[in-house]
């Protein structure tokens, strides 16, 4: 691990410097949204549906308003806000647009759907108020499972989609693929399901909204990954100009995708400012577990054709994603099926491919992107196909992978994606080597437990640019980012970024990137994020895009500012610009003179009469960055050793190794942290977490007593090895690093469990892995 401070070559990038976020977070002086208190502030709580599917007959709030402390209560008709609508530019056969009301007025579509907002002088009174609401609901048959949705037997979730299918795309169909399957030596198939999960940031969602009469502006402090998108939706729903909404993001306690969509509650709470009093809403954990955005529930039917020596010839996949009751803004219900269809087959050379991806709507809480989006699932399916083929062909599973991994770059995949260079083969070789050197293969346990080793190989498209999102046909196309850099009188700089840290250390890593460009210590670079008034426009942080796109924009702005400084120094020295150089120590050499940044800033601001005629005062530069082509591709191999307990069906992870390649790591320790945290969430999906509903659509895991989040007792230490294949077109050669851990872990754990089960003849393809099935498999021989 690099010591704090810049590296031997003088660069900040690549050094694990102390995080600038840490001192305030370690001392309790961070400022999260619930830490904000404003004078005369009211507290909001929501009246929520107790039925999964029902017509709203009546929402009677008269008794609510009589509860001590309650100041106001509004149902849908009282607030009269426009619906939130996310759209794809696809024909009606492929996409059925639906919209999400801020408060449900005519129909409720999941347990927990907000019907009314109660505002009181303290949160206890607001909850008292909710208790007093009289809601009349006329229940309809709920559509709870994907199968029921597709059967379309009862009343549809949305009248616009009588078959309950919101997205149905067939993206690729290689000509002659049926013949390939018919003629192949071996065809293996997998049917896999993945459980519904909650991204579960430890800080729940929340908002504090206030109307500022002086600026005629609604000032909204909210923990969102996408402040500009919240501004747009809020302005549209409430009929305000964009300028009349300012979204500020304080410190954030995680997001993982759940906060990269616009929540109806934050819109309702902000709109409640009509009382001309600040309004705060903090989601409680029960709401977060039952009524927030969920993710991950997918069902794959896949098959693959192989030659006798394990070479894959064709792949076919049908994926159905249970999106719950509503499309999220801005991604729509297409996010999961489109990702699942387009990113498969990942790291493997597959000559023929056919896929169908569907999003069905059900009476469950709506879904949002969650760290990795569809990649954890499709990678799991691919890795199961590799393992199954190896078993059927009597080959080594790692050998089968090696025969199929992409090794020549750039590689144009059957999914029309061009992969930039990575270390697919090298990461697998190293991962296997590490586990072999540690002596795992062949080891046995003396306590009767059974060992298994599993691997997963994957790449992760990160930093999707506008082109990649446009190909998905979203009507709102994220991609670029803008950055502005300003030098102050003392020669220090402030950089804005449209991306947003919710734990990824942007204040540190972005400062490192800019410090290198300007030859400044990283603590002389201040990063501004999460303020729609100070940042022209930004897409926020999701899809591992912050460093690749936001960081590259910041780097480009810094280079532009450097050019300005060089031009100014050259002018003052009377030399030509080309000979002026940043000296790497906070100054510019021009001719035989050296100007410190403070000297140049002094001229730019205080003695503008010395500036050349064509140069205005001030020192500010703006740059944007967008990833061309198909984006950047980080990759990794995960290796996992498990012990299965025949007595309980329990799984213990004994060892976990991750060999990752995210190009150049700006801050290796931050990258490792992202990997470890991601792996923990992936293990959680493989073994523990699942949002379960009963047949009426009632959520059965409304607290941490039922929704099992793994602790330090379940998550092993993870050994991380770095490979470095620099990206050719991002600043510093970085690729994204946020999601990989989550993508690779479920497949590695599942394969390890199956390896341990190999003598039983049982193979499991779904997650979370049911302990009862493990117990049965391990005990069938004995019985």
């Amino acid at each position: 691990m690099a010591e704090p401070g810049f590296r031997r070559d003088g660069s900040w990038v690549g050094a694990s410097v102390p995080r600038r976020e840490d001192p305030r977070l370690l001392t309790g002086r961070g400022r999260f949204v619930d830490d904000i208190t404003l004078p005369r502030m009211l507290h909001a709580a929501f009246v929520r549906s107790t039925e999964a599917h029902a017509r709203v007959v009546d929402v009677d709030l008269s008794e609510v308003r009589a509860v001590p402390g309650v100041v106001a209560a509004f149902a849908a008709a009282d607030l009269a806000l426009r619906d939130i609508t996310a759209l794809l530019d696809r024909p009606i056969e492929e996409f059925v647009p639906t919209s999400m009301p801020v408060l449900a007025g005519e129909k409720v579509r999941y347990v927990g759907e907000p019907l009314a907002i109660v505002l009181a002088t303290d949160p206890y009174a607001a909850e008292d108020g909710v208790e007093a609401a009289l809601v009349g609901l006329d229940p309809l048959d709920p559509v709870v499972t994907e199968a029921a949705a597709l059967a379309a037997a009862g009343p549809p979730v949305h009248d616009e989609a009588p078959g309950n299918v919101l997205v149905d795309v067939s993206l690729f169909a290689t000509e002659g693929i049926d013949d390939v399957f018919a003629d192949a030596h071996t065809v293996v198939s997998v049917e896999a399901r993945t459980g519904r999960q909650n991204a579960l940031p430890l800080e729940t969602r929340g908002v504090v909204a206030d109307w500022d009469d002086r600026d005629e502006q609604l000032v909204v402090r909210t923990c969102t990954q996408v402040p500009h998108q919240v501004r747009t939706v809020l302005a549209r729903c409430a009929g305000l100009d964009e300028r009349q909404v300012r979204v500020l993001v304080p410190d954030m306690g995680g997001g993982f995708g759940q906060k990269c969509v616009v929540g109806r509650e934050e819109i309702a709470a902000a709109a409640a400012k009509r009382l001309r009093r600040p309004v705060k809403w903090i989601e409680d954990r029960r709401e977060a577990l039952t009524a927030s955005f969920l993710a991950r529930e997918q069902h794959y039917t896949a098959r693959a054709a192989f030659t006798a020596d394990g070479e894959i010839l064709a792949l076919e996949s049908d994926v159905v994603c249970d999106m719950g009751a509503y499309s999220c803004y801005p991604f729509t219900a297409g996010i999961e099926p489109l990702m699942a269809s387009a990113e498969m087959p990942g790291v493997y050379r597959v000559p023929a491919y056919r896929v169908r991806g569907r999003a069905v709507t059900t009476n469950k809480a709506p879904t949002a992107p969650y760290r990795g989006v569809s990649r954890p699932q499709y990678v799991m399916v691919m890795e199961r196909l590799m393992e199954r083929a190896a078993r059927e062909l009597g080959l080594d599973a790692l050998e089968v992978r090696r025969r199929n991994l992409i090794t020549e770059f750039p590689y144009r995949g059957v999914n029309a994606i061009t992969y930039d260079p990575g270390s697919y083969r090298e990461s697998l070789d190293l991962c296997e080597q590490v586990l072999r050197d540690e002596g795992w293969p062949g080891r046995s346990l003396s306590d009767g437990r059974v060992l298994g080793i599993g691997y997963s190989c994957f790449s992760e498209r990160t930093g999707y640019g506008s082109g990649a999102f446009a190909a998905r046909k979203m009507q709102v196309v994220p991609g670029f980012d803008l950055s502005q850099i300003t030098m102050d009188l003392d020669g220090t700089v402030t950089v804005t970024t449209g991306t947003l840290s919710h734990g990824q250390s942007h204040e540190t890593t972005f400062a490192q990137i800019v410090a290198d460009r300007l030859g400044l210590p990283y603590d002389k670079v201040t990063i501004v994020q999460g303020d729609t008034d100070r940042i022209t426009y930004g897409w926020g942080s999701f899809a591992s895009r912050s460093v690749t796109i936001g960081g590259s924009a910041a780097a480009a702005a810094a280079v532009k500012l450097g050019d300005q400084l060089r031009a100014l120094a050259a002018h003052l020295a009377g030399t030509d610009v080309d000979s002026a150089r940043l000296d790497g120590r906070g100054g510019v050499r021009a001719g035989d003179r050296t100007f410190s940044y403070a000297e140049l800033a002094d001229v730019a601001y205080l003695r503008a009469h010395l500036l050349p005629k064509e140069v205005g005062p001030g020192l500010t530069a703006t740059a944007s960055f967008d990833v061309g082509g198909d984006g950047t591709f980080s990759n990794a191999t995960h290796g996992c050793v498990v012990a299965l307990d025949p007595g309980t069906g329990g799984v213990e992870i004994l060892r976990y190794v991750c060999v990752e390649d995210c190009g150049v790591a700006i801050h290796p320790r931050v990258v490792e942290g992202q990997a470890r945290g991601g792996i923990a969430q992936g293990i959680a999906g493989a073994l523990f977490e699942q949002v379960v509903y009963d047949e009426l659509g009632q959520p059965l895991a409304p607290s941490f007593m039922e929704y099992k989040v793994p602790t330090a007792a379940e998550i092993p230490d993870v050994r991380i090895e770095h490979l470095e294949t620099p990206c050719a077109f991002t600043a510093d050669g970085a690729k994204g690093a946020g999601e990989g851990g989550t993508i690779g872990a479920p497949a590695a754990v599942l394969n390890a469990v199956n390896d341990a089960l190999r003598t039983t003849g049982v193979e499991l393809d779904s997650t979370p892995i049911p302990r009862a099935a493990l117990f049965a498999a391990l005990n069938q021989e004995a019985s």
Partner: protein
Amino acid sequence: MTDVQLVELTVNGERHELAIPPRRTLADVLRHDLGLTGTHVGCEHGICGACTVLVDDAPARACLLFAVQVENAAIRTVESLSGPDGGLSDLQRCFGEHHGLQCGFCTPGFLMLAEGYLAESPDADREEIREVVASNLCRCTGYQTIVDAVEDCAGRRRAALQSALDSAPRSAPQSAPQSAPQSALDGASA
């Protein structure tokens, strides 16, 4: 439910008089009545541990306690760990050095959990530390670096104590600080 009660609380060595409803949780009183927002609320049902504070030196969930219950106790929050100038304690420094935090939301709870635990079990080994760290939830780190941080802090405290004892006059073996019982030395020399 709007009845209020007069309560006296001792937080970080300071006495506070409060008129609060009996149902008001300690977490809410600390955060919103006393402005000590370092104590975070993550679940309000005692599982996540983000609200962990010390009540008479023992880690406790501030979301599961009503403030009226702890009138006669000494309460310590994360704000007590650093010096008045913001200088970090050894435990806080260890968390920073080991990257034991990312978003930082769960961090105050883990710090107070570890502070209380290490005072009671200064000779804790890694497995015991992992078990205690399992009391709280973190969603960012995968826990490994939190365990690293607590283990490192325990080791440094033992080493510091050992070197203090080594350099202390032999005639005064009883002068070892109360918070570092003999078992600490056993751990350090092992």
